[in-house]
């Protein structure tokens, strides 16, 4: 039997065992449901918060159109509610049918609100009041308010930026968060499945039976491959749910997020990160013989995972070019979580991604060698924890 076939058998066992496991199916299912539900809730929240309703009377109705125009210019939405008179307008605000009401006359109107206007509303209404005042003044001077308005509209500020801040929109920021959180969670859970699997075989002594017929590296390679495939399936399911929800609800319609590239790179980085972390965890887990000891022996690697994640997720979305974030996106072990965030935020050049990928890939042969050596030397030594130095040296 060829080594490849042996690895395939071992990987096949890992896959069928996980797929049969209720816990795995439930977690994946819940994850997908949570993603879809999150998208729907986000969509509802955006809908309800976006439109400000303004009540107008027949007298103030001419103000509705300029107000809409001002709102559009400010990326705000205004919904106009028509009421019969000033009293009805005040009642609409009091009954919370409208957020604000315009009473009085177009040239001298009063804004009715429950307590006070929010800053965005206030600035829009101020512009509206200034426009009406300007219109009145232009008319008084014998000019045409429409013409003045058109001239004003074409007058824009020219901006020359010496150090332009990277532009990113809400969709990109959300995708950056999702990419970072998803990769962190996926890498953490799947890599830990590997360390648990290694110790399971060691603690149940089945490893002794297996290693009387296959080589340690074949067992390790099969385990990493099998759990990697399962993890990738899980990540694909979650990404499909997230992308599907976002597209179906139109959450990304206005975003300049490059969804295809973000997803493709996230998958690539998952694979690279999984290989990196699972090799390290498999080697460390082989040093101990009981599940209770796994956490203590694998803690250093998990810290390598948590620190870049926390730094990345708290800085990158707001400051994607922060030197710490940029540095982390190149360092193997940190790159698989930080680089996908930068990619989603759209603030990274392709050559940067490839350079970082090359660094992470270059480390893998070293990890294969070291992990294979540690694992082979330690996995049959049950009982007390094997010292890392002994495992590297022996054999």
């Amino acid at each position, binding site marked *: *039997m060829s080594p490849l076939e*042996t690895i395939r*058998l*071992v990987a096949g*066992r890992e896959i*069928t*065992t996980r797929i049969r496991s209720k816990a795995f199916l439930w977690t994946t299912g819940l994850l997908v449901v949570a993603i879809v539900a999150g998208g729907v809730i986000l969509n509802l929240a955006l809908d309800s918060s976006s439109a400000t309703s303004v009540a107008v009377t027949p007298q103030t109705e001419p103000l509705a159109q300029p107000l809409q125009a001002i709102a559009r210019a400010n990326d705000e939405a205004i919904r106009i509610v028509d009421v019969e008179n000033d009293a009805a307008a005040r009642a609409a605000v009091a009954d919370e049918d409208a957020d604000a009401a315009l009473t009085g006359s177009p040239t001298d109107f009063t804004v009715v609100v429950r307590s006070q206007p929010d800053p965005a509303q206030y600035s829009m209404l101020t512009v509206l009041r200034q426009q009406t005042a300007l219109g009145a003044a232009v008319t008084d001077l014998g000019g045409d308010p429409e013409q003045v308005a058109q001239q004003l509209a074409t007058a824009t500020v020219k901006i020359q930026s010496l150090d332009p801040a990277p532009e990113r929109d809400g969709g990109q920021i959300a995708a950056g968060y999702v990419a970072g959180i998803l990769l962190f969670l996926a890498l953490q859970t799947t890599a830990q499945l590997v360390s648990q699997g290694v110790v*399971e*075989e060691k603690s*149940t*002594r*089945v*490893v*002794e*039976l*297996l*290693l*009387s*017929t*296959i*080589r340690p590296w074949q067992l390790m390679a099969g385990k990493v491959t099998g759990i990697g495939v399962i993890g990738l399936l899980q990540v694909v399911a979650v990404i499909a749910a997230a992308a599907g929800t976002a597209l179906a609800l139109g959450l990304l319609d206005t975003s300049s997020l490059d969804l295809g590239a973000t997803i493709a790179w996230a998958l690539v980085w998952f694979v690279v990160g999984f290989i990196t972390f699972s090799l390290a965890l498999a080697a460390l887990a082989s040093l101990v013989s009981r599940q209770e000891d796994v956490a203590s022996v694998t803690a250093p690697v998990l810290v390598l995972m948590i620190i870049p994640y926390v730094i990345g997720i708290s800085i990158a979305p707001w400051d994607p070019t922060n030197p710490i974030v940029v540095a982390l996106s190149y360092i193997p072990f940190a790159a698989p979580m930080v680089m996908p965030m930068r990619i989603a935020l759209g603030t990274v050049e392709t050559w940067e991604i490839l350079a970082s990928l090359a660094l992470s890939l270059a480390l893998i042969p070293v990890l294969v060698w070291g992990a294979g050596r540690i694992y082979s030397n330690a996995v*049959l030594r*049950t009982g007390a924890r094997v010292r890392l130095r002994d495992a590297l040296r022996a054999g």
Partner: protein
Amino acid sequence: MPELELVKLDKSYGDVRALRELSLTVGSGEIFGFVGSNGAGKTTAMRIAVGVLAADGGEVRWAGRPVDLAVSRRIGYMPEERGLYPRMRVGSQLRYLARLHGRSPEQAEQAVQRWTQVLGISNRLDDDVQKLSLGNQQRVQLCAALVFEPDILILDEPFSGLDPVAVDVMSRVLRAQADAGVPVVFSSHQLDLVERLCDRVGIIKEGSMVAVGSIDELRSRGGLRWQVQGPPADAGWPGTVPGARVVSIEGPTTVVEVVDRDGEADQAGQEVLRAAMAVGPVHAFGPVRPHLVELFRHAVSDSTDPSTGTPIGEEARQ
């Protein structure tokens, strides 16, 4: 016929020498019983034989060639500490192990059906291993060693924890395997079982073989013993036989041992009988066959340095 040979195996764990030039040979169709005190080195020797542990010195050979992965893949092995995936079904687990040992899916399926039938666990194929009783898990473990039709069987304590029915089943299976030409090595502390089942026995002490041979050979290597029911020993008659000494006196029954009389057992016996009859009437006379238990106690309590002492029975074999 191919033989499994362990040749001068050495193994140390730190300062502890687990094996000292341990050698043994098991032929095809032979059941070899491996006995020794706890920590004598049985498990270490067996783990080296199946290739999960590397020896510091010496060699394991099969059919004259060193054992490599291709050979060890054909060894049915039952580790001392049982090892199965607890949360995997009996059937799929056995099929998986058969496949790892190079069987095709069809061969694996057939073997799983056959062996679970033979060992009486065919109704548990779809249960997780952890749901089975310890005795049944043990049967699954033996199945795991058999499902790929091994060329060699090496079983560490296969009988421990089994009920008498299971012991019989296991014994029959081992005998059938040996009859089919498979060399079978197993260790056990149940010496009556070893005595009944094994063609040859090896007694290991502090990492080296102190006695190897068939039960009869081992018996004859000690002194020859006779039980005489007749005149009391204090009448002095045992002293008239060369090489004889009194082992025990219980009422009218005297047990006499004659040493250094290899090859003339009958003559020595007749001399004992004549000496007793010369003193008084003999009501019963016969040879005493020591049990393996006594041989074992004798062998392991022997204070001679095991690395230099001559293994009892070794010449008889060669």
